[in-house]
């Protein structure tokens, strides 16, 4: 089964092919990326079938590794590990990636840098697949960082504008805060367990509760950054400045789910700690609720979906915190499908309406039937309505909470489900019903509609596989508990009804000002994003700017002063040297020449050319010589 190695390698090769090309050649070669990811999808499906029926938790169907570096006696390896978890993830990632890449052919076809877009998307897919199949935490961390880079590049893809530039920096720096925690966690892990390998760290090693808590919390911190959990969630809404299909792949389906994947993989450490599980659950439920509330006041359609993603990721953390690996992981899978579907639909809507503001949309249902149907399936799945996928996975999470006797968290999760239904209804009625506000509404290209159709079909039917999914992961599978299913459906239905009551009843453009005024305090707090951004801005960004300003002044005055002073001294020395050169050295050289010339001019007069003058000189000299001998007495 060594072909598993090719799954992450194919997109990486696509990147290596596209990367060095010229912009023009790259724009024509985007099919390389699509072909690579589609091949990876085929291989992933084969791998999935071979792992089927699975059922052995923690037992690898295929495992191979090589040592790529050794530091002293420390050997660092890269490996490929195929078990049921990674088999599922491989299929999910390659499926969504293929859908997004096909969709992007239509969405991005007018962009001048579409080739670069595809190259980065390929690199991202390669990194995500590498993360999924890695057999140790260090390799996972490396793939994790490559994804961070790709996320940065894609958020800032339209870097000619200010907002994407700022958003890309914000995303990179915020996730970096979490990554530092992850890195420290890895260091503590290695110091304690002496290895990064899953087999050693997760199964063989006996964790003491204290160190397990430390490692688990540090890993959780990294996961919180990547998966946008409160309080590190602030980057994800801003990340919507990037291209919408990239948001669908990275910021809805795969990269943000990597944090959940990390916690799911490291769950034995969390279980060894105990307290870390509770903290995970608390963070998750707070995020689920806050994300839902914030989504309910956003006007930008993509930001609604972004906060919704935050909220749903919180749901997954709640499940993992309650020990429900299968429930959390299952929600990851269903969410990946229906949320990427919603993002792709949002892309079509934005293209058609030429705006992202939902207040300027309306009446799309009449003109865009395919989009409406697929988007509706995605919305119902997100709201948790039977029989769409979100219902099943959300229900499993609630069941886990109920059986785990976490009643408060159960109530809060239900509240989050209610809020989810409200904002889904708000989004849907705002966009698809009511009066048309834009003319020239058109359905999208076929290459955009087909991926949406595929994702919608999967979102509609995947829920019925929920017991088999649990069995595949090696747990006991069961159909949802009827009482809990009825409760959650009732709550979701109430939420949808409330949304309809506010936004869906009227046919004219809705004015929500009276509503806002009635709940002014709540609305103000929510519309300011619960002060998270303001707090960070005031306590971190502003202070940092002040520090940077002070350092800049220091740089300008002290460092530049020293440098310029040294320059001035050197220059003065050089001027002295130059004077010395001109007057002394050149003077000596020229003086010698002048003296020789003058002497020559004098001596020249002797050479008159008259023989008798020479003879006279000769005789005179001879006489002098003889006189010399006479006087000297030779």
């Amino acid at each position: 089964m060594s072909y598993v190695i090719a799954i992450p390698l194919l997109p990486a090769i696509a990147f290596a092919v596209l990367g060095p090309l010229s912009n023009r050649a790259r724009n024509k070669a985007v099919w390389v990326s699509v072909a690579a990811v589609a091949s990876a999808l085929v291989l992933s499906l084969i791998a999935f079938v071979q792992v089927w029926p699975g059922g052995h938790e923690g037992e690898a169907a295929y495992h191979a590794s090589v040592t790529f570096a050794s530091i002293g006696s420390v050997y660092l390896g890269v490996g490929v590990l195929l078990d049921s978890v990674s088999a599922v993830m491989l299929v999910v990632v390659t499926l969504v990636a293929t859908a997004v890449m096909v969709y992007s052919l239509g969405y991005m076809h007018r962009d001048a840098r579409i080739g670069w877009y595809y190259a980065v998307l390929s690199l991202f897919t390669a990194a995500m697949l590498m993360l999924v199949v890695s057999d140790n935490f260090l390799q996972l961390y490396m793939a994790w960082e490559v994804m961070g880079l790709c996320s940065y590049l894609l958020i800032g893809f339209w870097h000619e504008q200010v907002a994407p530039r700022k958003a890309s920096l914000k995303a990179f720096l915020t996730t970096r805060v979490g990554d530092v925690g992850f890195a420290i966690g890895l260091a503590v892990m290695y110091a304690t367990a002496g290895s990064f390998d899953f087999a050693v760290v997760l199964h063989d090693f006996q964790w003491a509760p204290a160190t397990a808590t430390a490692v688990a919390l540090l890993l959780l911190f990294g996961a919180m950054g990547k998966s946008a959990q409160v309080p590190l969630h602030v980057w994800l809404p801003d990340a919507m400045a990037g291209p919408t299909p990239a948001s669908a792949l990275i910021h809805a389906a795969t990269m943000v789910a990597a944090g959940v994947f990390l916690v799911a993989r490291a769950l034995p450490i969390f279980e060894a700690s105990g307290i870390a599980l509770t903290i995970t659950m608390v963070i998750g439920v707070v995020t689920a609720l806050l994300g839902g509330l914030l989504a309910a006041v956003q006007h930008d359609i993509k930001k609604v979906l972004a906060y919704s993603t935050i909220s749903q990721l919180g749901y997954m953390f709640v499940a993992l915190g309650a020990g429900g690996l299968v429930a959390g992981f299952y929600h990851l899978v269903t969410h990946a499908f229906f949320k990427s579907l919603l993002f792709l639909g949002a892309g079509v809507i934005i293209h058609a309406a030429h705006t992202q503001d939902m207040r300027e949309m309306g009446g799309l249902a009449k003109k865009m039937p395919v989009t409406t149907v697929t988007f509706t399936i995605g919305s119902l799945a997100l709201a948790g309505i039977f029989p769409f996928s979100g219902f099943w996975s959300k229900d499993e999470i609630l069941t886990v909470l109920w059986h785990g006797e976490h009643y408060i968290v159960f109530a809060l999760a239900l509240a989050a489900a209610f809020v989810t239904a409200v904002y889904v209804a708000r989004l849907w009625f705002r966009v698809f019903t009511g009066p048309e506000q834009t003319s020239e509404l058109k359905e999208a290209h076929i290459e955009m509609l087909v991926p949406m159709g595929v994702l919608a079909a999967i979102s509609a039917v995947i829920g019925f596989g929920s017991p088999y999914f649990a069995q595949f992961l090696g747990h006991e599978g069961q159909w949802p508990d009827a009482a809990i299913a009825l409760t959650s459906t009732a709550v979701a239905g109430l939420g949808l009804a409330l949304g309809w009551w506010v936004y869906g009843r009227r046919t004219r453009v809705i004015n929500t000002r009276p509503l806002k005024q009635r709940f002014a305090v709540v609305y103000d707090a929510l519309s300011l994003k619960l002060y998270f951004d303001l707090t960070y801005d005031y306590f971190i960004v502003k202070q940092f700017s002040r520090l940077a300003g002070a350092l800049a002044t220091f740089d300008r005055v002290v460092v530049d002063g020293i440098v310029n002073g040294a320059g001035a001294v050197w220059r003065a020395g050089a001027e002295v040297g130059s004077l010395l050169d001109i007057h002394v050295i050149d003077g000596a050289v020229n003086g010698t020449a002048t003296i020789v010339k003058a002497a020559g001019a004098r001596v020249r007069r002797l050479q008159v050319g008259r023989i008798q003058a020479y003879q006279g000189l000769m005789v005179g000299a001879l006489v002098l010589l003889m006189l010399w001998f006479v006087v000297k007495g030779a």
Partner: protein
Amino acid sequence: MTLLQPVGALSFMTLAAVLFSLGLYGALSRKSTVMVLMSLELMANAININLVALSRFSAPAEMTGQIFAVFSMVVSAAEIGLGLALVLALYRQRKTVEVDAMQELKG
């Protein structure tokens, strides 16, 4: 003091010195090449007198100086022939025999 004293070496050498000086003066001051050549002859003959006289007063038996003087006169005759021939050739070329006219070889 009588005029008919035996003639000593000093008298010959004085005569030779006077002759040599006359020749030297002529060689240095005459403008005509012919006169310069004649002055050179004067100087050569002054040397010949010295040769004969010194031979007579130092080693009369061997007669070395006389023989040498005869050689010298032969060489002088040959030399003056060559010199006058040169002067003639020069005159044909230049229509003058003045020493000052010949300055082409100065640097």
